[in-house]
């Protein structure tokens, strides 16, 4: 039965995440924006709360770990129990609860959310493709994601980092940049090629211990926004990892090509979309409050054109927010119900990414000096938000993914 409201069972989780956002993140958000590269120690205390959420029986995390592949058919819960009849065989699971809690914590702060221990995008990758044995081994570790290289950004198939089998080990060589939480994490999930001549099918992901002597931290980036989150550059020099740390299938299968590595995105893109939705909500909530103090309140029942220009803007921004929010929940809902969701994940990411940039910029504009000044967080959110339309696939990459799928065109036809 069609219903697009948040299920009741997730309300406590959302409330808890909202409290974290408002009580913990807002007060320290500016501090770590100004103190780039300083470790937000307040978050260590939080990780206890987050782990508590994980074990609270809702089976959900506050971060990206909740994004996981659902392989069981709808109608069965994760523990093998049959879903109650009342649910009609539909489940609202960890992808949805993660999306919802990420929306809340990113309404608090995107940089701090990205710095939450053990909630990295690498964890999402592990959750998506690791074997049960690997999942157990990496449990309770904080994993970051290393895909991008100086010469390979959106074109992930062009990465030059190599992994050569040597006995029971792989030897990794190459350079990785833009590794979110790279300094603070325990594990780095590295994309590398088993054979550069075989193209994208040879790209595999490897779990590298942060303490591995072959993995050197080169530098931390200075950024436009999300400064609370460290962004690392690594060099891999004869970095040896056990063969058992290759994630997923070790064989090169040219027929399935990139699928294995790329399927991570079906789960992580809705989470990044959720970040953008949360940041958009933050901008709209604060702007609505500031404009209300100036006597501007949007009336949803009156046509926009009979209201003030500022009120009309609020109505349009709220509408675009709604579209982004619902596209995100749909993508997560599909992941929870084992429905293929590549296109929907990209739609959510594309809409949420552009909406958050556009809304944040407009909110700065509407609030004028207050919006532009460091006295409020609006200008920071406008800087933070831009990354959400870039990482985990830029706006343009999402449009490519969607168009190729809808038009049934290959990457050589639609380049």
């Amino acid at each position, binding site marked *: *039965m069609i219903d697009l409201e948040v299920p009741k069972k997730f309300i406590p989780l959302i409330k808890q995440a909202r409290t974290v956002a408002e009580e913990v993140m807002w007060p320290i958000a500016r501090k770590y924006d100004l103190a780039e590269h300083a470790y937000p120690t307040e978050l260590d205390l939080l990780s206890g709360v987050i782990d508590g959420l994980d074990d609270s029986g809702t089976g959900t995390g506050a971060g990206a770990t909740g994004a996981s592949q659902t392989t069981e058919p709808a109608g069965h819960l994760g523990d093998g129990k049959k879903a109650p009849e009342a649910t009609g065989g539909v489940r609202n699971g960890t992808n949805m609860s993660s999306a919802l809690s990420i929306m809340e914590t990113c309404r608090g702060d995107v940089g701090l959310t990205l710095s939450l221990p053990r909630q990295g995008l690498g964890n999402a990758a592990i959750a998506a493709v690791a074997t049960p044995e690997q999942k157990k081994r990496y449990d309770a570790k904080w994993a970051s994601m290393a895909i991008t290289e100086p010469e390979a950004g959106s074109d992930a198939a062009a990465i030059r980092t190599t992994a050569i089998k040597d006995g029971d080990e792989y030897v990794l060589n190459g350079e990785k940049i833009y590794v979110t939480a790279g300094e603070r994490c325990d594990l780095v999930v590295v994309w590398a090629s088993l054979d550069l001549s075989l193209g994208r099918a040879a790209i595999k992901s490897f779990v590298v211990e942060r303490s591995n002597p072959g993995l050197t931290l080169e530098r931390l980036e200075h950024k436009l926004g999300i400064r609370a989150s460290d962004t690392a550059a690594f060099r891999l020099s004869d970095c040896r990892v056990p063969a058992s740390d290759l994630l997923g299938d070790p064989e090169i299968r040219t027929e399935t090509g990139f699928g294995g590595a790329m399927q991570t995105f079906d789960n992580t893109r809705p989470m990044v979309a959720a970040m953008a939705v949360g940041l958009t909500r933050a901008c709209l909530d604060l702007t609505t409050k500031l404009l209300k103090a100036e006597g501007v309140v949007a009336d949803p029942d009156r046509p926009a054109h009979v209201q003030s220009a500022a009120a009309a803007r609020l109505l*349009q921004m709220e*509408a675009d927010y709604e*579209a982004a929010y619902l596209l995100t929940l749909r993508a997560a809902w599909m992941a929870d119900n084992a429905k293929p969701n590549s296109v929907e994940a990209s739609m959510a990411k594309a809409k949420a990414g552009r909406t958050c940039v556009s809304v944040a910029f407009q909110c700065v504009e509407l609030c004028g000096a207050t919006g532009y000044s460091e006295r409020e967080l609006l200008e920071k959110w406008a800087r933070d938000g831009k990354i959400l339309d870039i990482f985990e696939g830029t706006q*343009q990459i*999402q449009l490519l993914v969607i*168009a190729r799928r809808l038009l049934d*065109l290959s990457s050589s036809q639609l380049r």
Partner: protein
Amino acid sequence: MQDLNRTSIADRSTAFGLRMLTKAGGLPILQNSDTRKRVEKLLYRSTKEGFRSATVATKTFNRVTTNGSGPARAKTAKPKVQFDLTPTDDQQMIQEAARELASVVLRPAAEKADHERKVSDEVKAQAAELGLVLIGVPDELGGIAEERSAVTAVLAIEALAHGDMGQAAALMAPAAVATAISQYGDAGQQKTFLPAFTEAEEAPSAALALHEPQPLFDPLAPRTTGKLSGDTITLDGVKALVADADNAALFIVGALIDGEARLVIVEAGTDGLFVEPDAAMGVRATNAGRLIMKGVSVPKENLLGTAEDHLDAVRRARLAWAAAAVGAGQAALDQLIPYVKERQAFGEPIAYRQAVAFTISDIAIELEGLRLAVLRAASRLDRGLDASKQISHARQLAVTHGAQIGSHAVQLLGGHGYVKEYPNERWYRDLRGAGVLEGTLLV
């Protein structure tokens, strides 16, 4: 070309009826005897007579007074707790039926209906078979609604508008009036005005007339006024783009009464009521007209519902138009996808160019956003929750992105999109309307 169309509609119409039965009969959900009964009611309604619109003032409504028995209302659907995008079996069935009507009957007749500004009798007859006019009228009042469901209504309107928004609006305009009377009316109003829709051999043409001609129109502040004095209301004002105004037997008009926007039932043929043609850019099959009221007196009992009900009608009409925009937008996308792959320029399909391909992606993204916003608003209505904000979102998305999809639909075909060789120029005109029009439809 038009002759060819006409024959094929007639042929297809017969085929359609049969196919519907075959198709519906094969659905596994019809194993359930309750569902089967409803389907049968839906399918076999008023097949014995062809549908003809009533002429002005020939239709008389005999006032019925009730001794205290309350009005019947369709039940609202029961709340469920799961986030879910799966329609119920009943909804899928209605959706299927509406889609079939849209593709087999409405789409082939669309160009002619747009040009002639009318829905042909053949099309009306086929649509009447489905009984969609009674989609919001409860069982006990002779309708087909087991539960009142805005979700069901938006799914049906979307499916019909995928075939043709103009004919969809024309066919569903009387449904808006029937729904409004059953939802807002007292027992007397229900008994007086509903039998014409549920029992009579010729269901009347009727219109929910909220729009007015002035720029910056706000339906919550209509210029049309109603003066209450004794037992009568005297109406003065002009309603714009009223569906089938010159044939409608019954109007529900929005008017300011004692400072509040209210709904008033007005029968055609009342003294002081005039109709002028009011052809528009799009949604032309509704045969829109202006309804001019000069000292029109109606009995006080014709006041329909409360000020809150008027507001509810304004909202539900906007949601219905947003649903129509989803249908027309999807129709455009469905046509554009094969087109841009076939159309060659510079030695390859234009779909190979990002400028074209990204436009397809943008259409799909905004269309899905609009669709989900419509569904959420509708599901909130069905739950009995406040949906004012969600309806505003759906409306706003239809205003901006819906219209933009219409514009893209022409642009991607270039000159071919601008000529009547393709339906794209009609989608352009219709999609502009979906975010502008007030009233006429109701979910």
